[in-house]
């Protein structure tokens, strides 16, 4: 019951953040050339005059800015993100069809990079200042400094063009119409390169954090207690230190959601992965600003949701969290 209350309270705290993001979206609309309706209608006049007139009315553009903001917020609250004339579909529908592939990409990346990152960080911390530690540190340093989109292109050169092992782009083999398990395997096959590319970068962050976290926990009093009562070093490391060292990693997973969504714009556009990032890339090229704003809003919401999930997860993992 306590936990439910806690969750509800956190949910309430998220509302001002969402409102602030909507206001920010509104301000960005004002920054763009022309008025908000020009932007929403797709700038170049591809919208019908009737629709534009109707939009102007619904936005109340002759009214002061706070009334306009009010209209905008009411629209957003009803999840009315406008219409994309370039793609000839409501923005919300477009985003919904692309959400799945992006979530698939992100969850796989999260699992892969967190698992391997923790493992590597653990290895580095256990063998502090040995060749293993140094090698892992160098790896983290390099992958932290490599632009995602460049890794993606290099992977395509090596694994797709020269070795012909993996497909260059897309999520499924076009025209194959696989079903059932064949389809799952096909998608998994297409996922390898994008997920590896995205994971490499975040892997470095997890590795560094895990190493630092292990080293920090090692100096705590409870470790000394465990050692003093004669527990073998292995048990102290894996039972006591490891469990506590994992907590910051979960925080990082929440913090990184936003950055990962940004990375997915680059990775998806290189690999032609049909997700939100690819949609953003297309919107950028067709100057479909309203669609871009819709994607931005969706991504911000995803980050808020992810942070809520992390908070909730914490209540299970760390009994010290005060639910009051």
């Amino acid at each position, binding site marked *: 019951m306590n936990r439910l209350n806690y969750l509800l309270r956190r949910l309430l705290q998220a509302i001002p953040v969402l409102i602030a993001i909507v206001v920010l979206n509104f301000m960005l609309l004002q920054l763009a050339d022309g008025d908000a309706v020009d932007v929403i209608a797709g700038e170049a006049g591809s919208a019908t005059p009737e629709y534009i007139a109707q939009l102007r009315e619904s936005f109340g553009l002759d009214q002061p800015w706070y009334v306009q903001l009010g209209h905008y917020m009411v629209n957003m609250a009803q999840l009315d993100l406008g219409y994309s004339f370039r793609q000839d579909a409501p923005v919300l529908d477009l985003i919904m069809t692309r959400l799945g592939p992006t979530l698939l990409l992100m969850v796989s990346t999260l699992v892969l990079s967190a698992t391997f990152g923790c493992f590597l960080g653990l290895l580095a911390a256990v063998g502090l200042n040995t060749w293993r530690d140094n090698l892992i540190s160098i790896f983290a340093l*390099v992958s932290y*400094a490599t*632009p995602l989109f460049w890794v993606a292109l290099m992977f*395509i050169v090596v694994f797709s063009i020269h070795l012909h092992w993996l497909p260059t782009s897309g999520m499924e083999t076009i025209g194959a119409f696989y079903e059932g398990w064949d389809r799952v395997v096909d998608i998994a096959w297409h996922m390898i390169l994008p997920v590896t590319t995205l994971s490499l970068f975040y892997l470095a962050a997890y590795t560094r954090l895990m190493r630092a976290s292990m080293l920090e926990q090692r100096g705590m009093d409870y470790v000394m207690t465990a050692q003093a009562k004669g527990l073998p070093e292995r048990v102290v490391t894996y039972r006591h230190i490891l469990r506590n060292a994992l907590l910051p990693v979960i925080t990082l997973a929440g913090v990184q959601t936003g950055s990962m969504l940004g990375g997915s*714009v680059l990775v998806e556009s*290189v690999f032609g992965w049909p997700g939100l990032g690819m949609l953003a890339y297309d919107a*950028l090229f067709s100057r479909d600003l309203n669609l871009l704003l819709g994607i931005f809003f969706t991504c911000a919401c995803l*980050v808020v949701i992810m*942070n809520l999930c992390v908070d909730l997860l914490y209540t299970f993992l760390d009994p010290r969290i005060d639910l009051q």
Partner: protein
Amino acid sequence: MKNFWQQYSRNKSAVFGLVVLFALVLLAASANLLFPSDPFKLLGAPMSPPSSEFLLGTDSLGRSVASGIAHGARTSLLIGLVATSVAVLLGTVIGGLAGFHGGKVDNLLMRLTELFQTIPSFIFAVLLVAILSPSLKSVVIAIAVVSWPTVARLVRAEFLSLRKREFVQASITMGMPSWKIIFQQILPNALSPIIVSASLMIATAILLESGLSFLGLGDPNIMSWGFLIGAGRSILRTAWWVCTFPGIAILLTVMAINLVGEGLNDVLNPRLREKDQ
């Protein structure tokens, strides 16, 4: 100063980073001497592989990749430096005000900072450049707008702890005006963590810039590494060198700056270093 060098040179990888960075600055400074013609100019046959005439080959239009990299070095370093300066200034002002005044001001400014940290930064930067239309100025603005929150939080934490120290309390008792306390007493003592995080931010800014110009959001009149890679994308199958070399340039630059930042951290924040070991 001598002491500083002695401590800095104890970290071998930081020295390596400094050497690479120095070479890059040299390359950027001498770009006009080494490659006097405009990097956008078509110099040879399109897509010629690396040879003695074109050290790193040419792209799909016959532009020299080596020249593009040399001129791009100026863009990357310049944008990294300027955008970081703007972000550090903004972050220091906001974080400083929050940390110094505390209470309601702090609460409000920290909510704002948290909001900007929640927003997916790269997508926000893309959106900003798209709205402001691609130019050097809008790229700098976009990078600064998404980078300041880190500095703000850092400066706030420093100010909060320094504010309670006796020398600051003494200055308040003496009736020193707030701005004097901030600039003469607190800020000089908070400078070293700011410098360290600023140096690391330059690396992030360069990565961000390369991502933006890869998506075609760079200044169309200025050569940059991200632009080169973006332009080489469509001919990846036949001319791998167009994408490969600019990427290596980004990798080396970002790595070198990170190493220098870590080296500075070791020298300027000795407390942290001891905690690390």
